[in-house]
């Protein structure tokens, strides 16, 4: 893996595409579970972008930030899925279109 022959723009393009697909998933899907997965997808796209920039500058800091993004993602998934389970126990649905009341 000594010589880097792929231009880093290609990695950024893949990251941009993955991010956009994640945005589409959040905006058009109805299942809260799939919306969570789309958020994970967007976080991963940003991670890919960060690692590519870390390679571009030959500095490790981008990879460290990926570390923190992963831990935030883990925390977010734990809390988010707990909320989802609570909503499902209450309303028997996981569709965001049917959970539109702020008051209980």
């Amino acid at each position: 893996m000594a010589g880097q022959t792929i231009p880093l723009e290609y990695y950024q393009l893949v990251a941009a595409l993955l991010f956009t697909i994640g945005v589409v998933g959040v905006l058009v899907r109805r299942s809260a579970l799939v919306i969570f997965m789309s958020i994970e997808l967007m976080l991963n796209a940003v991670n890919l972008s960060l690692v590519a920039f870390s390679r571009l500058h030959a500095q490790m800091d981008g990879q460290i930030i990926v570390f923190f993004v992963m831990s935030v993602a883990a925390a977010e998934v734990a809390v988010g899925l707990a909320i989802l389970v609570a909503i499902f126990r209450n309303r028997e649905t996981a569709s965001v279109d049917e959970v539109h009341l702020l008051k209980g």
Partner: protein
Amino acid sequence: MIEAFLFAMFGAGAIAFALGMVFRRNPVHCALHLVGVLLSVSGMFVLLNAQFIAAIQILVYAGAIMVLFLFVVMLLNVRGETPLLTPGAAKGFGFFFALIGFVELLWVVLSRGGDEAVPERLPALPSGFGSPAEIGRVLYSTWLFPFEVTSILLLIAVVGAVVLAKRKFF
């Protein structure tokens, strides 16, 4: 040559799996497609000399987080939604705004970040770049304080998840 082949494989795989994840009906299929995306992205991490991050990606994301997702899918026993996408004008707006965002991202990537000069030749990597030893050195020196804050964040997340799961809503 082999690097170009691997990049094409992982990149196309990541995008195809991502599309499958968004447009599949069954949540279990969506989760498995997301695993495919995560594995492809970790392959690209290896191509970018981030071996340790790639290993963590597989262990933490494709291992732990995806098991959590699948566990909740099984627990909730959700059926696939009958209209897959949100109905009406919201769908059109969703695609439209996503397209606008993509065009912006594309513009930023192709303009190479504005006027800041990006080196044509990639710099040579210092020895040990992306290795666990080097990650640990940077993490526990420059990034020590954020690292400690992360532990508090995880503690709060654990407490919050337990509280939410145990609480009786009415």
